């Protein structure tokens, strides 16, 4: 039971890491290697609000989330759109976006280094036991889980219950066809990229309450997010969440029952196996 709850809490953490990238990669087709840096930037915002303003780190969301949305919109509009336009096919766009966002991740690390310095930043917020079924769990992780549920619920509703969401899903399936049915593809792509950035930054705020970070740690999150997104199936928010929870459960189970030294090995093994058995990911559509 402990394993189940701990695993779900960890899975929620992972889904916070990965949800933004699902939108950016699945819909806007940008394999964003600078995604982790956006997460760290969000975390920095929360840290600053907590230490300098002495306010709840969640207050940072009021500034960080719209800020990240705007920033990512601009990034897409002025840096990525030209790549989309010049790419002849999806493969070329993939190569170009890998190269471009790799460069961006360096720029973002550089900026954060200038602004915040290179040291660790960590603080204590809601780091108190919270009893579930008689066992203590970290309250900040429980809160993170609730936030993850809220964000994914909103996204799910947004994607499935609104016109914009339908347009986004159409885009995820086939941008060319989406263009034919009068969906404004560039605008929708920019929107989903920006939304993905905002969700990622929001995840960063939540994660900063229990993870210790520094300016150059973003790549760790990017890699995890890529793996979760691919495992879940590109462009499927539901898949990303399921994959995140599966990874969380697997890591916790291995850590508790076998050997904590093998947790990450188990996670990657699981990922590798999923891809071998279902190359399109858990919820992906098979391409012929």
């Amino acid at each position, binding site marked *: 039971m*402990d*394993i189940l709850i*701990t695993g779900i*809490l*960890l899975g929620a*953490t*992972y889904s916070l890491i990965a949800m933004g990238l699902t939108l950016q990669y699945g819909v806007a087709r940008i394999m964003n290697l600078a995604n982790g840096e956006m997460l760290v930037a969000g975390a920095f915002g929360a840290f600053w609000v907590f230490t300098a303003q002495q306010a709840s780190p969640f207050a940072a969301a009021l500034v960080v989330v719209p800020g990240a949305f705007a920033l990512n919109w601009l990034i897409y509009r002025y840096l990525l759109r030209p790549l989309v336009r010049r790419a002849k096919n999806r493969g070329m766009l993939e190569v170009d976006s890998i190269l471009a966002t790799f460069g961006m991740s360096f720029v973002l*690390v550089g900026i954060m*280094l200038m602004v915040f*310095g*290179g*040291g*660790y*930043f*960590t*603080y*204590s917020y809601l*780091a*108190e*036991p919270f009893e579930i079924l008689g066992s*203590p*769990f*970290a*309250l900040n*992780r429980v809160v993170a889980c609730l936030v993850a549920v809220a964000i994914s619920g909103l996204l799910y509703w947004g994607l499935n219950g609104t016109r914009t969401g339908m347009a986004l899903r159409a885009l995820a399936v086939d941008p060319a066809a989406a263009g034919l049915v009068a969906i404004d593809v560039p605008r929708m792509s920019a929107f989903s990229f920006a939304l993905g950035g905002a969700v990622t930054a929001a995840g960063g705020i939540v994660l900063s309450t*229990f*993870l*210790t*970070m*520094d*300016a*150059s*740690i973003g790549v*760790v999150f990017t890699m*995890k997010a890529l793996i979760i997104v691919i495992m879940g199936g590109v462009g499927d928010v539901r898949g990303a969440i399921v994959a995140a929870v599966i990874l*969380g459960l697997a*890591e*916790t189970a291995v*850590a*508790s029952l076998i*050997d*904590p*030294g093998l*947790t*990450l*090995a188990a996670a990657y093994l699981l990922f590798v196996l999923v891809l071998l058995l279902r190359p399109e990911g858990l919820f992906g559509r098979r391409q012929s």
Partner: protein
Amino acid sequence: MYRRTALKLAAAAALAGALPLGFVHAADPIKIGAVAPKTGPLAGGAAITHWPNVQLWVHQVNERGGLRMKDGGRRKVELIEYDDRTNPGETIKAVERLATQDKVDFIVAPYGTGLNLAAAPVFAKYGYPQIACTSVTDKVPELTKRYPSIFFTLGTTTAFANSVAEVLNKLRAEGKIGNRVAMVNVADAFGIELAEAARPIFKTAGLEIVYDRSYPLGTQDLSPIVKGAKAANPDAFVAWSYPPDTFAITEQSKIEGMNVKAYYTAVATAFPAYRGKFGKSIEGHLGAGGVNLDTSEMKAYLAAHKKVTGKDADYWASPVTYAGLQVLEQAIEAVGTDRKAVTEYIKKATFKTVMGPWKFVNQSIHDFWTVGQWQKGLFHGVSSTGLPGAKPVIAKPGW
């Protein structure tokens, strides 16, 4: 902020150039190179223990007019710094660049065991003394034989494990704890070495290891391991950990209510951020390092560190790094900028440092702090390999 130093330096240099020559022509500055991570996995640690001390030292030396040379003249210090992005290949290149392009007089040793050892052949090739203040290794005899200009100051993994065993046994003798130890380690170089050293030592010391597990670097949730350790019902908890996980393990232990009377985490326990994060609940926590806070030198150092860099120094590698620079400073003042002479001088002389008097025996300092403990908001040394001023160990109260 290093830029600020550079700017100040530039301003000072411009000023010196503009001033009419009053006294003896101010000699060329001594060029000091420094290469360490500003980015990459080790950047967080370097930003706390390495760079601020380099900055502090350069600032202080120049503020007092520069290094006082044998001939009575003063020479200021000019710092050239590079970021190796925690990549040993970059470290090697940067040291080569400092040696052959910038032609610096001396080079501050890089940061961390791996980067120092990667750079050691280059230091040796050009005869630069390498006072490796942030390296902990058990291969000191081999390394010093191989590289005649390398110096170690921070200690050996065996000594660290020995001291932890001693501290635990002291508490046991006082009847405060039993002999059950839960031990975890991060599966990266330093963590693996420490755990490896500790296993036989703990056994010989009569301590029973009831839980012994590693976890990968970058693990995001350490609660299973803390739960596992707690379930083994230990009297003492020892984590050979790195900075990010030291924070995570401590937070999780607090949440799980791991009520052991002896609680040890390794690197980063001595960081001011550790106290900043956990406040009063870290009373009685043991960690790697420690200092003698009662000496006036240490007090002055801590105050200056805060004043110049705007941050608190940590209570382990920070003063050791600074002391390494003091060694360099005193050696240059004694024999000049001839690197060979400086190296020989370091091997023989005794130095007055913030860590107390330092004398290298076989190129390494044999008296160093190994275990410190948070007592009333300060991290005191409680165990060492023969240094005076150790505080008595206390049992950890509840959280």
